[in-house]
């Protein structure tokens, strides 16, 4: 019964998401950027992504901005990421493997060494979470994504001892294993996981920093409307080439209360919490946290004086930083089947991510990761969607202004084999930047069996674009389709084009990521009665092999397959 209800729940979640994007499964949680082009989604590695949706407002990417929803994400240097995920899966057993297509196999002896294509790399994953017994369950997971690893491999492998991964010799950008116990019942969801993890984090200097978490332990408890997290990390740093090594012992965690049933039907909703990190560094480490401590209290409020109007605000303040995010939204249905949303949102603060480290140490230079002053961003947006029979027609338009946008003041570059590093500090753009964006879409939905969306978007930004870390994509088009045949065979596909994007500040000459077509497809055999799912996904079929971020590795056509049995 549980399996059936779980499946229904998952299916409803999936179907609810149908009109927006095809349900393509990327390599692992948090790598959704590889399946999106409705904006600027550039993947340097599984641990470094520039992810900015069209019309998001401001020139930063989403992973740079702290929000209360990201309390349990991983902090990778100064960005927040779902990858590698330490969130326990639903009760199930799963295996996943894949490969960048293009190993030579028997083609190898037919070609000279010079004509060999570079090595292609796989992904591997296996894990389980047991059914609950008296509420208790166990879980374990081993996973790594070797994709996006080969271009920088020869520079990275000399920095570390051994293969720096659980298996293989591709020096993957992360390799993680953990296991633990949990409890579900009586309104409590709790888990304790312990594991070991190899990771390469991308610094503001543009260098890859190897971190070996041994061990990493994370505990989570959700009781009613209260969520608690606590993690212990013993992070080992090394640079074998320079005979450097060091250790960071870190405790971090959060407590978050959201007003639940009490506020559900009322006009007032509120939440509050605190996040903290405390570190103790020994030897040579490559980042620093001022006072070895950050405590970040925050509060949220939502006020809905009438059903159509919602005001949201979040404010976080501590001794170093403050961050305010607020919005007002008016939703109405001026005509039957016609939905209209008018809104205004603001982001202002001294730092987009106030829980991150404050300094990076690189080659004798101290890079300040916290700029003086503050930023502010204001955005007006309108969204309208009309539905007629099986058709949906919609549009959204947004205009925004930003002052004090975070950027990087580069003072110099240094070459390391094929990689380029930079000196400087995180800084600000003391000018108003303005953006105007729009998107239109046409959708067709036929029950649960078929959903198709064609969409196109455009954004133009006025401002000193050469000072942006990334000049975003200007336009894109996408054709997304999902079929569910006989309720048991799912096909999802996504054909997209996006225009050029440009990295301005991480190399002597700006790096242009050329526009391209991408096609992804997922095929899935489903056996709901048995909780069995067999999934195969092709990613980036049409696109040219290209490096999407400075010091990143090639984005290639790849295939990923998964077998999952839910309990």
């Amino acid at each position, binding site marked *: 019964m549980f399996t059936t209800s779980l499946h229904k729940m998952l299916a409803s979640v999936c179907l609810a998401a149908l009109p927006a994007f095809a349900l393509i499964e990327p390599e692992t949680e948090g790598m959704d950027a590889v399946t999106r082009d409705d904006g600027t989604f550039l993947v340097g590695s599984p641990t470094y992504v520039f992810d900015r949706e069209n019309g998001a407002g401001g020139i930063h990417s989403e992973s740079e901005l702290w929000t209360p929803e990201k309390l349990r994400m991983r902090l990778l240097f100064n960005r927040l990421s779902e990858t590698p995920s330490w969130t326990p899966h639903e009760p199930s057993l799963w295996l996943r493997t894949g490969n960048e297509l293009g190993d030579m196999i028997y*083609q190898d002896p037919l070609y000279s060494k010079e004509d060999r294509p570079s090595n292609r790399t796989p992904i591997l994953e296996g894990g389980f979470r047991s059914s609950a017994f008296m509420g208790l369950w166990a879980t374990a997971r081993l996973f790594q994504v070797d994709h996006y690893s080969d271009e920088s491999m020869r520079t990275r492998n000399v920095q570390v001892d051994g293969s720096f991964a659980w298996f293989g010799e591709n020096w993957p950008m992360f390799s993680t294993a953990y296991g633990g116990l949990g409890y579900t019942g009586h309104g409590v969801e709790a888990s304790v996981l312990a594991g070991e993890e190899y990771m390469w984090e991308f610094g503001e200097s543009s260098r890859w920093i190897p971190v070996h978490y041994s061990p990493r332990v994370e505990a989570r408890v959700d009781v009613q409307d209260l969520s608690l997290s606590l993690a212990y990390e013993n992070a080992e740093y090394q640079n074998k080439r320079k005979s450097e090594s060091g250790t960071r012992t870190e405790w971090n965690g959060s407590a978050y209360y959201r007003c639940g049933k009490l506020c559900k039907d009322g006009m007032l909703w509120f939440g509050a919490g605190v996040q903290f990190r405390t570190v103790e560094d020994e030897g040579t480490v490559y980042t620093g946290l001022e006072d070895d401590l950050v405590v970040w209290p925050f509060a949220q409020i939502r006020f809905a004086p009438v059903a159509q109007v919602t005001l949201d605000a979040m404010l976080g303040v501590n001794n170093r930083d403050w961050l305010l995010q607020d919005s007002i939204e008016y939703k109405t249905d001026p005509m039957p089947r016609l939905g209209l949303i008018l809104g205004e949102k603001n982001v202002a603060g001294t730092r987009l991510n106030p829980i991150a480290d404050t300094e990076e140490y690189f080659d004798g230079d101290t890079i300040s990761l916290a700029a003086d002053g503050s930023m502010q961003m204001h955005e007006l947006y309108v969204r309208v969607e009309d539905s007629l029979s099986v058709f949906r027609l919609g549009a959204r338009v947004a205009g925004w202004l930003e002052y004090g946008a975070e950027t990087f003041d580069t003072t110099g570059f240094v070459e390391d084999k094929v990689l380029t590093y930079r000196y400087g500090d995180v800084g600000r753009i003391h000018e108003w930047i303005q953006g105007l964006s729009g998107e239109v879409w046409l959708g067709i939905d036929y029950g649960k069996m078929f959903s198709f969306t064609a969409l196109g978007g455009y954004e133009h930004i006025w401002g000193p674009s050469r000072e942006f870390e990334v000049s975003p994509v200007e336009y894109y088009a996408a054709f997304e389709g999902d079929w569910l045949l006989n309720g048991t065979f799912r096909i999802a596909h996504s054909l997209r084009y996006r225009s050029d994007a440009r990295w301005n500040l991480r190399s002597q000459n700006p790096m242009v990521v050329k526009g391209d077509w991408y096609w992804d497809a997922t095929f899935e055999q489903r056996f709901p009665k048995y909780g069995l799912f067999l999934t195969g996904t092709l990613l980036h079929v049409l696109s040219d092999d290209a490096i999407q971020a400075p010091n990143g590795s090639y984005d290639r056509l790849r*295939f990923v397959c998964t077998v999952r049995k839910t309990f």
Partner: protein
Amino acid sequence: MDFVKALSKTLAVALLSFACSLAAESPAQDTVAKTPSDVAFSHVAVSIQGGEIYPWGDLMDAVENSLFVGMGLRYSYWENFDGILHFDYTYFKSRIKEVPYPGVHQAMGRLGLDWHGRLISPVMVGGGFICNWSRADEGDERDFDQPGGTLVDNETEFGYFVHLNVPFLKYERLRIGFDMLWEELWTLPERSNMLSAGFYAEWRLW
């Protein structure tokens, strides 16, 4: 010319099997179930199989034809479709002297669907995805720069296959047939194609 002979034999066996199959019964479904969910796994069969693999195109210069053995699983999926899962093993001997090993171990996994509609039953046609794992029989990382040297480490590649399954003998739960399969692996610099042909014995569990 070995290949041409082998292909001729394969086609001859295929035609003979096809003729025999007209007398064989439809394999997986003999009742009509109510919903796709009820049909799924309402029949399951396990099999053993063996045959020969023929490299195609440029690959004929790289490796010899080889024998394969394996096992399989067949399950009802929809009324006229079966799901199939195969695991096969083969050993390819190298044709090129400079290659620093005598041969390559190859394991093959396939997942796909077979259609056995009324028009062609009991013959089945199908296709799906394939995953091959290869590793040289000898050699170590010092041979990496030699011809074929990438195979001294594990290499994995995906691709697709299409096949024709011709059952020609059925006795109670046992079914024997002929299977001809075309596969393309997504290798570089060129795609790799192979044809295989073999026989199988399948035992229906339920």
